[in-house]
Structures are given as C-alpha cells and as structure tokens.
C-alpha cells in the first residue's frame, strides 16, 4: 500500500514551469531517495508535497487522500512533515523552542516524550538546548531541523538536502542518523545530491532530470548504473 503517490505532477513559479511530469510512489516504511543535480526541481517537488506551492497539474495522494489542494497546516496535521533545504530554522529562538514548535499542531500531549526521543537521537542537542538556533554550527542546525520534523509525529518525513553544507565527516554522521530514524519504522523521502550515501541508506531511488523522472529503481542497481554518472558528471 503506498503511503504517498504522485501522479503526473507539473509545477513551477509564475510562468516558469520547473517540474513537467513527475510520478512516483512511496510505500509505508520505505526510505526512498530522489536524486538530481542542482536546479532540476527537487525542492519544487518537496514544496508541492508539503503544500507550500500548488501544482499546476497532476495529483498528490497521501494515505489515499488528495492533498494537492490542502493548506500546509492541514498537510502537517496528516503527518507529512517537510524538513526543508536550508533548514529554515527560527534563528532567534532557542533550540528547545525550535523543537517544541515542531509539535505546534500536535499540542502538548506527546511533547515531552517526543523531545526526549529527539534528544536521544541527537544527544549533542542537549548541550545546546537553550542556545539560539542562529548560533549553532551547520551540522547542529541540521539536527535541529530534523529534530523539529520528528517532533511533529510524522508518518512521512521529507528530508530536503540534509547533507548540504556539511563537512564529509558530518555528512556521514547525518546519514547514519537518518538510517537510525528510518530503522524505527518511519517512512522517509530523501532528496539529495549526494548520490552514494543516499543510495546506501535508501531502498529505492528516483533520479530527476529536466523536471521529469529519468531513472528509477532499487538503490543497489542504481549505484552501478552508468547513466547516473553521466547525469551527474556529464561524462
């Protein structure tokens, strides 16, 4: 049973259409990577899924319900949580406030247990808990961003370029953490340009080119696909 299903999606900003025709599907419990080089429309896809922009064409089903016409907060209520590229933290708020706002739509019921969970996954954040988010390093900020997403009791976590701007060591740690999160049974849509590491933790992957899905398949097959190398390095 697919948790989310995208059919013939076309979207963009103003007159400029970025996504032309995207169809994909993610099942419960999967980790699926969406790959593609800069500017192919990965972020646009995410923004459509989380309701920040309305698609020009096509439909998005989440738990068999059409969500393409829903507002971002309704989508959050349904459990689709988007951890955006560039983190979009609240720089003037403390780490704790940032995390707790992740459960803004959930009220206080599960808040403290969720917070405990998040701090278990990211123990480093405990040390920074009362620091303002703007003063954290890039890696720590990314942890807060993911933690904030987890606070919202997600059924599907949409991670947009979580490794962006992190040093190699941190990138590796970040992917380990994502793996850990998904091992707990959470469905994850991972949008990345870091191919190998994404594929190492994803079950399946889609590669976007020119606003449409160019390649898709199981991770282990894709890694050996020469097409992928061409797509990325232009060789």
């Amino acid at each position: 049973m697919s948790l989310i299903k995208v059919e013939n999606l076309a979207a963009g900003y103003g007159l400029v259409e970025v996504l032309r025709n995207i169809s994909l599907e993610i099942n419960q419990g999967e980790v699926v990577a969406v790959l593609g080089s800069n500017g192919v429309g990965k972020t646009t896809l995410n923004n459509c899924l989380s309701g920040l922009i309305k698609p020009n064409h096509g439909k998005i089903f989440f738990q068999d319900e059409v969500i393409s016409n829903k507002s971002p907060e309704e989508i959050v209520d349904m459990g689709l949580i988007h951890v955006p590229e560039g983190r979009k933290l609240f720089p003037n708020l403390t780490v704790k406030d940032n995390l707790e706002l992740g459960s803004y739509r959930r009220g206080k019921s599960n808040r403290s247990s969720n917070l405990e969970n998040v701090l278990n996954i990211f123990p480093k954040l405990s040390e920074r808990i009362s620091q303002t988010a703007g003063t954290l390093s890039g890696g720590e900020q990314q942890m807060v961003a993911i933690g904030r997403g987890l606070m919202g009791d997600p059924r599907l976590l949409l991670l947009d370029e979580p490794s962006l701007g992190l040093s190699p060591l941190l990138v590796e740690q970040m992917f380990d953490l994502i793996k850990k999160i998904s091992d707990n049974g959470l469905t994850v849509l991972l949008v990345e340009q870091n191919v190998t590491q994404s594929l190492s933790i994803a079950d399946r992957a889609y590669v976007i080119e020119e606003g449409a899905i160019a390649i898709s398949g199981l991770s282990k097959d894709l890694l050996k696909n020469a097409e992928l190398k061409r797509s990325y390095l232009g060789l």
Partner: protein
Amino acid sequence: MLRVNNLTKKFGGLVAVSSVDLEVNEKEIVSLIGPNGAGKTTLFAMVAGFLKADEGEINFENASIVGMKPHQICQRGMVRTFQITQPFAGLTTLQNIMVGAYSNTPQTISARKKAEEVAEVVGMTSLLSQGADGLTVAGRKRLELARALATDPKLLLLDEVMAGLNPAEIDEIVKVIKGIRDRGVTIFLIEHVMKAVMNLSDRTYVLNDGKLIASGTPSSVAENPQVIEAYLGHGAAEAMAEGA
C-alpha cells in the same frame, strides 16, 4: 589577469572560504566547481567586491582591488552575474541590457545600440521588448549574461548560468559563452553542469568545504577520486570504479 591569494572568509564560526589561491589568465575560460555549499559563490562575491574578505589579496590586472566597491570593480572591467538571477523585473529586456550598456556611455542612443548588439550575441533579439519578469529561466540566464556583457568587460564572472536549463538550452548557452570568449573576453565561471564544464573550460578549480582540493584540465579533475567523492559522497569513487 586575476590573481587571488590566501583568500579567506568566515561567517561566525563557519569558514566559508579558506586560504584560496587561484589565477585566471587572459582569454582563458576557467571554471570553479564544487558541491553545493562549497563556498564558490562566496568566493565570487569577494572577488567582485560584494563581500569583504577577512584575509587575502585580490589583484586584477596587477592592481589590488581589495576594498573596492562592486561598481568600481565593474568599471575596471570585471563583472559578475548572479546565481539566482536578479533581473530588473519591472523593465523590458532591452531596458535591462541598456542599464549595463550605460556604464560606458551616457548616450541613450549608443546605449540602445550597444544593447541591441549584445542581445544579438546572446540571442535575445526577439525578446527585447518583453518584460524581464516574463522571461523563462533560460531567458533570465541569458539576460544576466547580456547585461554583464553590455558593460564591455574584460573579465566575466559567471555564477551558474546553466543551472535549471535543459540540454538543448545548455548547448546553446555554451556556444554563446564560447562566442564571447572569442570576442576577447576572459571568463571565470562557477558551474554545476559538468558536461558544460568539460566542454568549455581550459582549466578547472575544485572547491570543497571552502578549500581548493584540485585544479587542472577538466578531464583530469573529473577523474580525481577526491573530486568524485566530494561530488557523489564518500565511497563513491570506489563504487564507481567497481561499477565501471
């Protein structure tokens, strides 16, 4: 022509650009590549005078341009374009290009002439009367290029002019850039589209995590395992070697 020594920029605790040395020679096309967030745009911003470097020297035509304002640097013949296109949205294409052309002439008539000339070079003649906010991504990228070119630069700094374009569009813009070089303009570009980088550049620098990790001809750089790892992630070089 352009020589950068020990250039460093920190944002808070984060070192965005760390002791970078590089050189661009006359009539060359030099590219600067690297994964997202590597510090390429920061480096450009410092070179073009938009950001103050914390340390380091920037020399253009054997004179230091550290501390100069962008417009002064432009008047010396070095112009940058922006990664996220910054058209003058309320103006037409022609008016946009004329703003660049005015840097060399106060005359409206000659600025217009220059703009039309440049438009032809970048292939925008048919779009001259269109509003800039109605242009497609490709159109905007060209406009960005055209405006810069209209200032009659000696050195063009192009920041990802191909991002978001389809292969056909990329092929066209590659031709345009080559044409510009053939007119005697030196070009220093940031690019992600590797195919274009390979095709265009005489030399390539690779920036990762603020540091230069490789330089040389494009093909030698593309084979560099460090570069592949930087791009595709740790272990990628190995995996690819296996796959291939």
